[in-house]
């Protein structure tokens, strides 16, 4: 038995070594600060923009920034789940546009023929959520059943759904909507500091953050992105799980469609166009790995805040608008570079 005890001690020693001496300091540093470095970037941006343009610290600037962030945050929450599985959903912006148009078209037609009851609103909202989830289901099924890369599949649905959106109302917007939709976009709590759409987005972030970190569904989402073969061997129905993940992304695109429609009191066929780029950027800035297995909703919230702040901050600082995109692009590349460094110096 002597030998076994020795072996115990050896393993214990090796474990300790891994946590102290055996690991390069840079890796330990990156692991320790985790997603906090993005929080640091956010604080620096707030201070920097606030110094250049003190109007950043006003209610108006906060409301503009927060309202801008709503649609990207809701999309980015779903995108986080997808990216954690090592997938990508390029279609979520197009899904937003399609579901917003479909639900609004239904509401406009019901308003014309029936009275404007709660039924119209409920039917319209349900249709937005259902079309969003439906497009997600389609993505998930094509990816898992035909074993095609998510990038290609969602690029295809992005194109097809964008075209279909234009077919819905001959490419024109829908403004004839029930009053409730407008109310949803303008109502707010805490004496106007917290618009309802912002509240909805934050509530969704909280709920889905808990789903990702605290539930079996979340754990399996990480497992699939980390090692799909391991997940399969553990008896997890990976295909079914992936379909559900893409459905979540689509469903949230439907919710985002509702929020955008409420915000503008109208549905536009170009709503959501290119949103997927911002959503993916937010997730990646937030520390998720595009190789899967890593990412948090907390990080995504910060990533979205950084993007929103860059946008309003640069406007307030009177910088030409195109610099916004350059800045956001630079942050994305920086974030991916950091992810890369982590992976290479790190662990896998």
């Amino acid at each position, binding site marked *: 038995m002597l*030998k*076994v005890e020795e072996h115990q001690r050896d*393993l214990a020693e090796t*474990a300790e070594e891994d946590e102290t001496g055996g690991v390069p300091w840079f890796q330990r540093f990156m692991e320790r600060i985790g997603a906090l470095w993005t929080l640091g970037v956010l604080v620096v941006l707030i201070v920097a923009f606030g110094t250049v343009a003190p109007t950043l610290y006003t209610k108006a600037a906060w409301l503009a920034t927060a309202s801008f962030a709503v649609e990207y945050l809701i999309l980015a929450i779903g995108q986080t789940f997808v990216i954690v599985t090592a997938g990508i959903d390029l279609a979520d912006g197009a899904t937003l546009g399609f579901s917003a148009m479909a639900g609004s078209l239904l509401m406009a037609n019901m308003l014309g023929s029936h009275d404007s009851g709660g039924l119209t609103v409920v039917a319209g909202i349900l249709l937005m959520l259902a079309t969003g989830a439906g497009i997600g289901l389609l993505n998930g099924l094509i990816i898992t059943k035909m074993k095609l890369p998510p990038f290609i599949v969602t690029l295809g649905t992005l194109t097809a759904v964008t075209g279909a959106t234009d077919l819905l109302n001959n490419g024109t917007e829908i403004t004839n909507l029930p009053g409730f939709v407008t109310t949803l976009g303008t109502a707010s709590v805490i004496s106007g500091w917290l618009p309802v759409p912002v509240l909805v987005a934050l509530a969704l972030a909280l709920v889905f953050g808990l789903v990702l970190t*605290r539930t079996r569904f979340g754990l399996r989402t990480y*497992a699939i992105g980390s090692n799909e073969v*391991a997940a399969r061997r553990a008896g997890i129905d990976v295909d079914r799980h992936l379909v559900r993940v893409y459905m979540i992304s689509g469903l949230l695109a439907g919710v985002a469609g509702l929020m955008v429609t409420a915000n503008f009191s109208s549905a536009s066929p170009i709503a959501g166009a290119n949103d997927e780029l911002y959503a993916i950027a937010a997730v990646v800035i937030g520390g998720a790995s595009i190789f899967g297995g890593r990412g948090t909703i907390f990080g995504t919230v910060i990533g979205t805040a950084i993007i929103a702040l860059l946008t309003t901050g640069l406007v307030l600082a009177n910088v030409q608008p195109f610099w916004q995109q350059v800045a956001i692009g630079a942050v994305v590349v920086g974030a991916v570079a950091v992810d890369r460094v982590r992976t290479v110096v790190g*662990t896998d």
Partner: protein
Amino acid sequence: MDSGEQSGAAASPGLEQPVLEVRGVSKRYGSVHALRDINFEIHRNEVVGLVGDNGAGKSTLVNILSGALHPTSGQILVDGAPVSFKSATDARDVGIETVYQDLALAPDLSIWANLFLGRERTVSGPLGWLGWLDRRAMMSRSVEDLDRTKIHIASVSSRVGRLSGGQRQAVAVGRAVAWGSRVLLLDEPTAALGVEQQAKVGDLIRTVSGHGIPVLLISHNLPQVYELCDRVVVLFHGRVIAELRPKETDLDSIVSWITGSAMLAGKTAR
């Protein structure tokens, strides 16, 4: 030292029911006979080696035992009862656990999450129906499970990706043991490891078999097979051509059976 207690059981395998029995198993891929009429048994507390040259049929046999492949004919019995697998999950359900060469672990997950992956514990009550994890229960159970297999790792919350190769192998084996396996199949467990780590995995295999869980070890590392195994089954062109006991033979003659030169020389073994 610790091998004394195992040899007692291994010396009289015929007396008790084998934990795993392979009876007349054949596998054909079209005209290719990957396996022909394979017969062998594994008993409690035994470590059995499965060796053979490339293409001898080792992977095919392991895949059949782990439920990934169907035999063309023949039977597999676990504790005397015939079993038939539609999938790897079926094999695991009857207690045949395979630890693969490429380590079926998720590097981004903690040790406890890996140990419980696929059979996570949820809290009781409504939150449990929503899949709310009972992290505390899984963590403390993980500590116990790893203790039982003499695996000592600083914290079960460490990410598996940060562990050394030997420690990962230990977690994978610990996971198999924790799942209540009756037989452990190890496919090239030391192929990716350095010498020191190989020795640790060797100790681990002894510990596991000491717990009454027999081990089928598939390995190219013949010195290790020779040192660890109570019995060695040699496959040659899809047949079992020899079953050798390292205690009664030397390493060179195992090699000569693997290469087929022993057969040409007209030897017999069984």
